[in-house]
């Protein structure tokens, strides 16, 4: 039976191949020449649907032309092109004109075409320009933070960019920047993400139904594509914000991009040094006291060259670093405390449409994440360092990827690929003046990861789409080898023109673990590989979704999922790797954890019009079970939040002014708090309060909510530059959302000062981010 089916399939492919002609090429922005990913392509009166890949490439098979093909994308005016048989063959560049008004109805594609119907299950793909309009902390446009307002996605800690997807922890997100993994995606202790919105062209987030081309994390894939650079003219942009200032410079290397390629440089630099200037001046002129400073930068550089054979070579690099330091001077010695962390990613890619039906991608990439703490005390008299500790944690990846996309006919595609990754981990590297023995400088751990996949996209009939695939991944570390078989399947039924019923099944493996005691994506979180003692994590997710479009403007999506985890790790009880030098990380963790998360999601999206936005709701439960935690009983995970509501809206008042607001509500999340207190008199002889803890996550923080508003005032200057002045307020009604809990105690004395009779213990929730107004100013040079 299987053999017959196989023969039938092959015959069908050959048949369809023989009688169709192929239209292929790239879809580009008419103004900038940027190749556009995820452009919706419909033909045969909307009965057949396809889209461009990450490089803007498309390939569709047409029969019996003339054929009308519609190219459409949110934010662009749709382009309807009629092709005759004689037009087919060769690569066709299709231009889409960006709409000056993102919200304009003209951007809606043809009647009957549906935004959400053909969207694969679990995929969130929202135009970057739309995400940039979402009000965020300090007015820093942050696409990653904006994504956390969608159902099933939330942030780890208020204001931070640590992303949690369907109960997963921040490390369970595969974050790719131009096909290169990025390990720490946060600046400023998590308050700003490392992705400069000016340099980003597209962001896709998969929370279920993962295509087989992605692997390596348990909960989500965030695939970010940066801009290649304007092919038509040199463009400049400068933005001054409260926290950061940023610039963008892009353009053709020569007069015409087709001859010489393009370049892009985008960077950000923090303004915090300026804000902290009084602290520096006080330190400098008082010649004593303390001086605190914070530096942050990132830089995206991109270069691309297109060859005559339509092949394209792309080189891009990202480097970013945060440095927080405190200097002190007590008159006798100088003290320095410095924390720094940063990523470097680089990739060299070669892409080529080998034929009209075959697209080839090759990538050589490098990713590095480093974190360090350095403290030192220098004697003033001798200028000698009397004591220092220098701690570093490093992670290096070198990747080689190759893949082929084959578009045999209009009924589907086949993607094949493989990749090799060399990982080098050095989780502990300490130099110290203190010869006090410490278990420092563990041998670096090297690991190799090999993976191969096949992905089949089939659209045998108009009402059915299937994405199936299989990925096998091997991981070798310390004489131990692991194999992760990962089947993937997503099936979509389209019972009506505007309805989609979707089912997804994914199995994922993760060969590295993040020891995060904080859950906020803080830099002291430590990446460690799966080892012989720590098996790799696994997850299986089953999900369902129903999508329904109501006319052109509204889309409704209902989703449900059930996800299980195994071989999870977590910090051992009370462990903090950075603070506990005397034990190896492998013994600081609880191993063999299992988990489950399940929930229901709702999204009502108004995509167009003067007033646009979405309302989302998530109901979720997220549990963990470790033999060594809470006596092996199930407990709610750190990220368990029962209800999350997000309302995001933007309103175009007129050509010059647009307004935006979002309201967020989240149930409290579990934390571990003391269940009692006693005096430590009996054991240590001191009357300090001894807080007693029983179970992990035994208390839920109060619920969280806030309203943010933003207004953008746009004006064209006399020199035809575009000036945008933004004003906004974070947490408008100043709700006290607990960022952290703080416990203080005061002694209570009896009749005399020596009669110590008790304490007054007070725990308070501290709002780190109260009513917070901000402004920013940007100029786009023409």
């Amino acid at each position, binding site marked *: 039976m299987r053999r017959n089916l196989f023969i039938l399939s092959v015959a069908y492919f050959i048949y369809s191949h023989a009688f169709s002609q192929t239209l292929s090429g790239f879809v580009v922005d008419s103004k900038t020449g940027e190749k556009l990913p995820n452009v919706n392509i419909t033909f045969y009166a909307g009965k057949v649907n396809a889209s461009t890949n990450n490089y803007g490439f498309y390939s569709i098979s047409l029969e019996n032309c003339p054929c009308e093909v519609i190219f459409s994308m949110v934010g662009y005016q749709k382009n309807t092109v009629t092709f005759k048989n004689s037009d087919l063959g060769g690569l066709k560049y299709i231009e889409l004109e960006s709409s000056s008004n993102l919200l304009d109805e003209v951007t809606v594609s043809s009647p009957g075409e549906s935004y959400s119907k053909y969207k694969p299950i679990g995929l969130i793909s929202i135009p970057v320009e739309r995400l940039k309009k979402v009000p965020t902390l300090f007015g820093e446009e942050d696409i990653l933070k904006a994504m956390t307002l969608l159902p099933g996605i939330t942030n780890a800690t208020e204001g931070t960019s640590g992303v949690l997807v369907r109960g997963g922890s921040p490390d369970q997100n595969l974050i790719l920047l131009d096909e290169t993994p990025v390990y720490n995606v946060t600046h400023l202790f998590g308050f700003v993400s490392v992705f400069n919105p000016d340099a980003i062209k597209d962001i896709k987030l998969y929370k279920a139904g993962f295509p087989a081309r992605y692997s390596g994390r348990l909960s989500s894939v965030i695939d970010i594509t940066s801009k290649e650079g304007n092919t038509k003219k040199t463009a400049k942009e400068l933005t001054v914000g409260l926290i950061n200032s940023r610039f963008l410079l892009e353009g053709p290397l020569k007069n015409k991009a087709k001859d010489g390629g393009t370049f892009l440089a985008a960077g950000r630099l923090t303004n915090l040094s300026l804000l902290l200037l009084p602290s520096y001046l006080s330190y400098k002129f008082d010649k004593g006291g303390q001086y605190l400073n914070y530096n942050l930068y990132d830089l995206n550089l991109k270069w691309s060259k297109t060859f005559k054979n339509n092949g394209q070579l792309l080189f891009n690099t990202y480097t970013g670093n945060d440095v927080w330091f405190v200097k002190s001077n007590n008159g006798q010695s100088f003290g320095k405390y410095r924390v720094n962390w940063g990523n470097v990613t680089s990739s060299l890619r070669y892409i080529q449409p080998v034929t009209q039906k075959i697209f080839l991608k090759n990538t050589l990439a490098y990713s590095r994440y480093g974190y360090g703490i350095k403290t030192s005390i220098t004697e003033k008299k001798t200028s000698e360092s009397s004591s220092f500790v220098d701690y570093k944690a490093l992670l290096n990846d070198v990747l080689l990827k190759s893949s082929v996309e084959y578009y045999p006919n209009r009924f589907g595609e086949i993607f094949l690929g493989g990749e090799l990754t060399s990982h080098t981990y050095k989780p502990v590297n300490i130099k110290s003046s203190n010869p006090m023995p410490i278990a420092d400088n563990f041998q670096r751990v090297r690991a190799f990861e090999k993976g191969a996949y096949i992905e089949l996209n089939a659209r045998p009939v108009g009402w059915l789409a299937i994405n199936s695939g299989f990925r096998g991944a091997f991981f070798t570390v310390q004489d131990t080898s692991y194999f992760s078989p990962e089947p993937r399947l997503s099936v979509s039924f389209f019972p009506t023109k505007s309805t989609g019923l979707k089912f997804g099944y994914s199995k994922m493996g993760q060969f590295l673990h993040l020891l995060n005691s904080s859950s906020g994506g803080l830099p002291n979180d430590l990446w460690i590989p799966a080892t012989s003692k720590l098996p790799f994590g696994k997850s299986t997710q089953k999900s369902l979704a129903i999508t329904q479009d109501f006319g052109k403007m509204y889309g409704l999506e209902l989703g449900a999922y059930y996800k299980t985890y195994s071989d999870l790790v977590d910090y*051992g009880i*009370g462990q903090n790797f950075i603070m506990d030098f005397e034990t190896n990380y492998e013994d600081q963790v609880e191993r063999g954890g299992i988990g489950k998360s399940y929930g229901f999601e709702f999204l009502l999206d108004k995509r167009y019009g003067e007033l646009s936005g979405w309302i989302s709701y998530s109901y979720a439960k997220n549990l963990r079970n470790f033999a060594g935690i809470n006596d092996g009983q199930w407990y709610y995970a750190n990220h368990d939040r029962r209800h999350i509501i997000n309302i995001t809206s933007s309103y175009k008042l007129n050509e010059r002014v647009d307004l935006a607001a979002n309201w967020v509500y989240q149930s409290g999340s579990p934390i571990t708090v003391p269940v009692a207190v006693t005096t430590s008199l009996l054991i240590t002889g001191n009357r300090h309060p001894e807080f007693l803890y*029983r179970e992990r996550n035994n208390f839920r923080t109060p619920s969280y909510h806030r309203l943010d508003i933003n207004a953008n005032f746009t004006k064209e200057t006399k020199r035809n530059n575009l000036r945008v002045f933004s004003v906004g307020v974070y947490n408008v009604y*100043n709700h006290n959302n607990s960022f*952290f809990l703080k416990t203080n105690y005061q002694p209570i004395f009896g009749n005399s000062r020596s009669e110590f009779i008790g304490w*007054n213990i007070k725990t308070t929730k501290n709002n780190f981010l109260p009513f917070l107004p*901000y402004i920013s100013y940007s100029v786009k040079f023409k």
Partner: protein
Amino acid sequence: MKYVSYLFLIMAVCCSSCQKEIDVRFPFEGTRFLVFGVLESDQIIQVKVDKTYPPNGEVLFSDSFLDSTVVSLYEDGNFVEALAQSPSDKHVFQSKEKRAKVGRSYEIKVENPHIPQATSRLETLLEGIKIDSVWFDPKPVLSPLNPRIPTKMIHISLSGIPPDVPVIFFELLGFKNKELGGIPMGRERVGGNIISTEEYDELENPCKPHAAGLFFKTSCYKRDHVVFSFYAELQGGIQTSPNAGMGEVEYFEIKVSSVNNSFLEFYQNTDSIMDFFSIMDGIKPTNTAIINGYGAVLTKNATVANLKYRK
């Protein structure tokens, strides 16, 4: 620019006035007993008893509950006696004449009509360890912590580590003699760092010492003969241990104890107070060897040697 300046000013005022703190009340699990004691060979058995209080609000110490508290001693599973309250300290309950014996297992039960009964884990008093000799190394050494403080290396030679002793616990205390007008007035503890010469690192090498180098797992050493070495600072300094004074050490008291794993576990316990940086820390459930309560009743069998220091 003028308007921008005004805006900044308004923002600064708004921000500074918006920080606020709101009280949070943690749920109290109810009053439990805190029981602590170290039973030592041939020493009168005694334990200390206290109770827990709510983790928030006004906590006023109270010891009136002790009057209606019964502390029962069990040896090898048999009830021995109800311990009596010490006249000098209401929290201390002690036997009239029962002394801990090697090879015997002990259990303490604490009862009160208003507090759930607490029971200690069954702990056996292990056989002692024989100290062959202790001596100063004649070679000059520097303290790894405080190179300016005069330091000697002490070697302790042990033999006959009993097979059932999993952990050796070292205590090295410095003393000086007190006298007033030439009349001896006893001794005074003088703080001085005692530092193991071995790196402590239980994971890479489980035989390395634990907890500041004073706990050693016996499975890693020859039980018939082994020599341990320590740096001993001869002067109390800034980093001296609590309850110890400044001054020059005249002699060391060296205690080598056979203890079990629960003793080691209990001493690795730490407390924590929640503050901003606690978001980077893990929270540690309180280490307890008391069922339905907190604390531990541990056993320790110490062998003592003295080593006099002459300049």
